[in-house]
Structure formats: C-alpha cells, structure tokens
C-alpha cells in the first residue's frame, strides 16, 4: 500500500485509491466541536476541587488554632472548659462533614453504576 508517509522502499504498486482514502479519512477526521457545556463542567470541577483542598487545609489550621487556643487558655487558667467544648464541637462538625462527603461520593458511584447498567441493558 502506498500512503503519503510510506517510506519509498515500501511503496509497492500502491495506488491513487490509497491516497484518495487518506484524503477522505483526513476530511472525516476533522475535529468535532466540544459539547457546549464541557468548559463549564471543567471549571466547576476545578473550582470544587480547589474548594475541597482549601477546606481540608482549613481543617488542619482550625485544629492547630484550636489546640493553640486551648493551650493558651490552660496556661492562662481561664474558661478552659468552654474552649474545650468549642474545640470538641468543631471536631464533631468536621467529622459530620467528612461522613457526608463520603456518603455523597458513595451515592454518586451508585448512581453512575446503575446508569451504566441501564445503558448496557438498553444497548442489548
């Protein structure tokens, strides 16, 4: 076969038909336009990922801040119990959010698999 990129030594009795097919293929392979909402989804996911990273980073800072605060109050000997309760409360809140985040992921996985399952059933 004889295509435009075929090495000279490999060119056999290759024909105009090969070239014609290549031309047709090149035309057929023009890039398809991306779906109109693709960019929006990309930006949304990017933003969400950065929010989560920031949020998780915030958790650590909050914990550090809470711990330092607790330490200062203990050293100062004033309102320790209230601070401790606040710290525990914030931790509990973060645990709730962690649990709900995992729940969200699990439910999304479930929906995705069920949708795939339905699709493969419909394709049969």
């Amino acid at each position, binding site marked *: 076969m004889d295509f435009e990129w075929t090495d000279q030594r490999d060119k056999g009795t290759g024909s105009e038909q090969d070239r014609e097919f290549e031309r047709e293929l090149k035309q057929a392979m023009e890039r398809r336009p991306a779906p109109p909402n693709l960019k929006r*989804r990309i930006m949304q996911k990017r933003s969400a990922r950065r929010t989560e990273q920031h949020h998780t980073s915030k958790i650590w800072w909050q914990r550090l801040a809470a711990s330092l605060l607790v330490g200062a109050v203990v050293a100062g000997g004033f309102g320790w119990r209230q601070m401790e309760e606040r710290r525990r409360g914030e931790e509990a809140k973060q645990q709730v959010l962690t649990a709900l985040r995992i729940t969200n992921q699990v439910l999304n996985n479930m929906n995705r698999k069920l949708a795939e399952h339905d*699709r493969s059933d419909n394709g049969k």
Partner: protein
Amino acid sequence: MAQRWQPDFLQLVDEHQSMVFSLAWRMTGDRGLAEEVAQDVFLELDRHMERLESPEHALNWLRRVAVSRSTDSLRRRRVRGVDLWVEIDEKHGSPAEERQSPLETRLEQLLSTLPEAQRAALVLRYQEDMTPEEIAASMDAPLATVKSNLHRGLKLLRAKATTHLKEYVRGL
C-alpha cells in the same frame, strides 16, 4: 532574557477542548465517555501547569494524556464486561445533518473496531496531522511500531469502510 511562558488555564481549555474531546471520542467510540475523559484530562492539566514549558509542549502533553486516559477508561469498561464494540448507540453520535460522507457517518464506529494502538496512530495522524516521527516521540514508541500500526490500521479501516459503505448504500 526571554520571559518564561506562563500558561493560562482558561485559554488552554478554549484552545484545545475540541481537540481533546475529538481524540477521546474517536478513541473510546462513546460520546459520553469522551466528555468524562476530556474533563479528567483538563483537571490533570490543572495539576501540571507549572511543568508546561511552551504552547507546543502543552499541546503534545494534552494529546498524550487524552490518548492515555481514553485507553484507561476503555480498559476499565472492558473489565466490567461491557462490550462496547457490538453496537454504538446512534444517540451518541453527532446529529445527522452534521455528517457528510458515509465514512464520516460511521467513522467512530469503524475506528472502535480497530485495536487501540492502531486507532491511536490513525487518530493522531489524520485528526492531528502528526507525522509518524512526531507520533513516535509523543507516545514514546518506536517509529517502526508507529508506522506498522498506521499501515495495518489503514488497511483494516479501509476494508471495513468498504464493507460498511456497501451496507450504507443498501440501507439508503
């Protein structure tokens, strides 16, 4: 002293989203999956922005990762026992009025019947207009292998296209 190129994520998305989407679609044969792959590719780009050295580097990086992610997603689906290559749902394709030739009408379906390596070579060659040398460099594959994949892929594609063309004509 020349200033280091500063990539702009939005601009890269605007410039290359169609390329990435088309690559993914032709590699996977599934429009929905191609959209997912395209999203993943750009999210990965976001994580690697500082490593990009030039617009050409960004373009080649996107091509390579798009092909790689597409084959990964195909393998995951294959492992699940979903046979994608029996029927491609017409609903996944572009609206009919966009189509021109019979080849274009069935292109993604025909491509999906080829082995992945041949498919990748053909898409990079004819969609991206890359030379075999550029494909070999981009995919980190031997040049001879790339040429062999191109050769065999074209031969196979052409044989299948001819058969389908006859069927298409019969179906008109």
